[in-house]
């Protein structure tokens, strides 16, 4: 199960971070390492996209779908919070 693996890894990292087992200098280096690993992964993701001819030729369609999905996710999130907001804080 991939999900379980992800949760365990996240939890181990969380524990190490919470316990402050890393000195600030090490944390700074970890930050750089994190950015580098993120960029490497995004490069690999890009390669995966480039290898798939169909994605390249349907880029416009995917872009349109993306904007519709983004708009729907924002509108429904706002509605969702609106439904509970009066019970969470008092606001004018």
């Amino acid at each position, binding site marked *: 199960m991939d999900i379980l693996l992800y949760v365990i890894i996240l939890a*181990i990292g*969380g*524990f190490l971070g919470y316990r402050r087992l890393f000195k600030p200098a090490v944390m700074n280096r970890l930050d750089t390492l*994190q950015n580098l690993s993120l960029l490497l992964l995004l490069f690999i993701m890009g390669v995966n996209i480039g290898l798939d001819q169909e994605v390249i030729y349907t880029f416009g369609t995917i872009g349109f779908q993306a904007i519709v999905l983004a708009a729907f996710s924002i509108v*429904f999130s706002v509605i969702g919070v609106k439904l509970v907001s009066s019970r969470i804080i008092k606001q004018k």
Partner: protein
Amino acid sequence: MTLAILATVALGIASGFFIIPQSIVPYMGTIINIGLCILLFFVGIDIGNQGDLFKKLKSMGFKILFVPIMVAVGSIVGTIIGGTLLSLPWNQAGAVGAGFGWYSLSAIELSKYSAQLGTLAFITNISREVMALMLIPVVARYIGKLESVAPGGATTMDVTLPVISKSTDGNIAVIAFITGVVLSSMVPVLVPLLMTFG
């Protein structure tokens, strides 16, 4: 960083299109999965390092956890409805929505399934972040301060936090931060979970 990210993805696409041989395709899923695990480890450290969120939560009341829950439900339901209009499979649309604006992680997770879905997750969630930056002040002014936390999704702990803080007040900024942390922790779980349905 955003510029570096876009440039890196573009460079990857060009390499995949022109240079890297198709024979690598069967291994891409495994390569991405290993990288994802490394990235999640760092993300975990980041979240843990934020200090005693539990204490902050206790002082504000646990009812504020309804904010991330409602943002999660709204994002997933919203993308499922939008996806239905676009005739996308509901579980895939929902998984893209469960990225909550965290485009790097959700796109990488979903590119394990297909390059097409990874691309959709990347553009959708990057659009969400950009739209959120523009909409937060508008929502804060005309709909409500607490509601202005919603558009940013998982990005309310970093990228969109300054905008929320400027458009609202200190209390809302704390809620926004906690919302971002909770939603970020949910992304690695909910995205693959939704993909197991349908």
